[in-house]
């Protein structure tokens, strides 16, 4: 996975540099550095650094040597990590559709149903009280204007 992460950084660097070169001018009409000058330097730096990294990781991969950092992570909870990322996505994309309070309740219920199994009452109380407190804090006290969503018709 480390190798593929490095590859993605290289792809990003190439895309950043090429897009910058295509859309920005390196010098202005007076011959002074233009809007693309500094981004190009960054892009070139990124391409060189990430390419070296990819080479190093590829070399390591060939030698089938795991790095120390990977070894230190002896317990991997990949499924749990994906579940959390999915729950966060659910919360974010539910904000405008369901509204802040409902999406927070749904998020808490989904999260706790997976990570705190068998404690239905505790999960239910938590899923109602905590989102309500956050809603009060942001919407009422800080007047952040959280989306009402499905509850929009009631207030």
């Amino acid at each position, binding site marked *: 996975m480390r190798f593929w992460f490095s590859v993605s950084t290289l792809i990003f660097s190439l895309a950043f540099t090429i897009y910058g070169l295509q859309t920005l001018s390196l010098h202005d009409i007076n011959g002074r550095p233009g809007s693309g000058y500094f981004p190009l330097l960054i892009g070139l730096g990124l391409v060189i650094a990430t390419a070296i990294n990819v080479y*190093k990781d590829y070399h390591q991969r060939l030698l089938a040597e795991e790095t120390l950092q990977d070894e230190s992570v002896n317990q991997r909870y990949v499924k749990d*990590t994906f579940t959390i990322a999915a729950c966060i996505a659910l919360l974010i994309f539910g904000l405008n559709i369901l509204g802040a309070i409902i999406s927070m309740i749904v998020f808490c219920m989904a999260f706790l149903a997976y*990570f705190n199994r068998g404690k239905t009452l505790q999960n239910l109380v938590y899923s109602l009280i905590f989102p309500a407190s956050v809603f009060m804090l942001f919407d009422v006290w800080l007047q952040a204007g959280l989306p009402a969503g499905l509850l929009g018709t009631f207030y």
Partner: protein
Amino acid sequence: MFFAEILNNLSFGMSVALTTTNLMFLLIGAIVGMIVGLFPGFGPAAGIAILIPLTFGLEPTTAIIMLSGIYYGSMYGGTITSILINTPGESATVASTLDGYPMAQQGRAGPALVMQAIASFVGGTLGVILICGFAPVLAQFASSFGPSEYFLIIMLGLLLLTTMMGDNKLNGIISALFGFAIAMVGVDSVSGAQRFTFGSPELISGIYFVPVAIGLFGIGELLYCIYTGQHKMEKDRVQFNFRSRDFWPTAKDYLTSKFTFIRGSIIGFIAGVLPGSGATIGSILAYSVEKKVAKDPERFGKGEMRGLVAPETANNAASAGAMVPLISLGIPGSGATAVLLGALMMWGLQPGPTLIDANPDLVWGLVASMYMGNMILVALSILAIPLFVKFLDIPYRLVVPVIIILCVIGAYALNNSIIETSMLLFMGLIGFGMKLYGYSPAATVLALVLGGMAESTFLQSLIISQGSLQIFVERPLSLALTLFMVGAIGLSLAFRAYKRYQAKRSN
């Protein structure tokens, strides 16, 4: 003269900070910071980033005072876990586990907790006094800086931050360049041209700093904690009695540590002032020095009070020291101060040497609040330890939804933008990958915050010199900074080559 300036600055700061509202928010910040510090992985940078949205409705001075309370509070809170469960709340408290946990195992958890609070207080207080003395001097010196010196200082800060990354220096450089790349999105301040906006109106004003910081530090850290199974770990904390007479340190504890307080504070402060070094290096350095100067170094690592006092004074003095480049040069030296600077910029304040002159109330109010925050935190740490220890008993799986909801709702509340909130998840995933594979989210945030300034100072330098790079070695200070940078790189390469040579020889 020097002491008069310290007193003047501190008393002016007190006059700004000593209002009921400011004190109340400082107390809230300190408590929240302590709680944040209790959760492994969540240090000051994550704490400040996650909680910035809570300060939106506040006056800038009050808001920054609350954030400084969080900054200091998380340093205090991080040590409690180091002592009781042998798990540092953040990297700056790693050295505190070396003697703190053995003390707790020997039934001296009470004295360890009280002494860490006192040590933190001493370190923080001395640090604040030194800020009042040094920051104006440095700011005055910095007022003669030209754009080339500024650019070099920014680069030096980033360079030192990346060279402190052990074997992952290249990853540190990539992290910093990635931060610069994000900073390039939006309208170019010189030509007015749109850059990397892909025609989206949402990106014209650039990628906002808050979702990036919350994503990298908050969500990224959280995903990493889950990936490493933090939510499945049983916290086996050392139990102790708060009411027993043994709860307090003995006179011997104070006497043996009397010089440790001073040494730790000075080492920590210097480490904090140096860009990229910070509290982690400061605390480890202070511990090593203390062990070196001790007549009985064999006692270290087995529950020695000096082994706890040294890193604790150092990490708090370093937190204060890290404010010096931020206040005097407008250049943060660590991830946490980068987030603080980002918050300052959010309220329309411009980083740079004029920060002190243009906003003295905010700067000295902030410094004074750090001093008062120390007093509040030492009282809280001693009197409310039973309460904070209770937080350690909350299962991690019940804390996760709190962190996620605060991050997401906080990011949304900023501009009510679903794109910015989605950016949070995207940055969170990147932050997770960075943490997993040894990149530096702190370098990314630092570069993001300083990206605009780095570009403008670099281009100004080139315009002044008509495109010649000689401007970076022409003036004595520029030359010194360039040589220092070259020296730092050379030293780092030489050290690496030496390590390889040693490894080859041992094989």
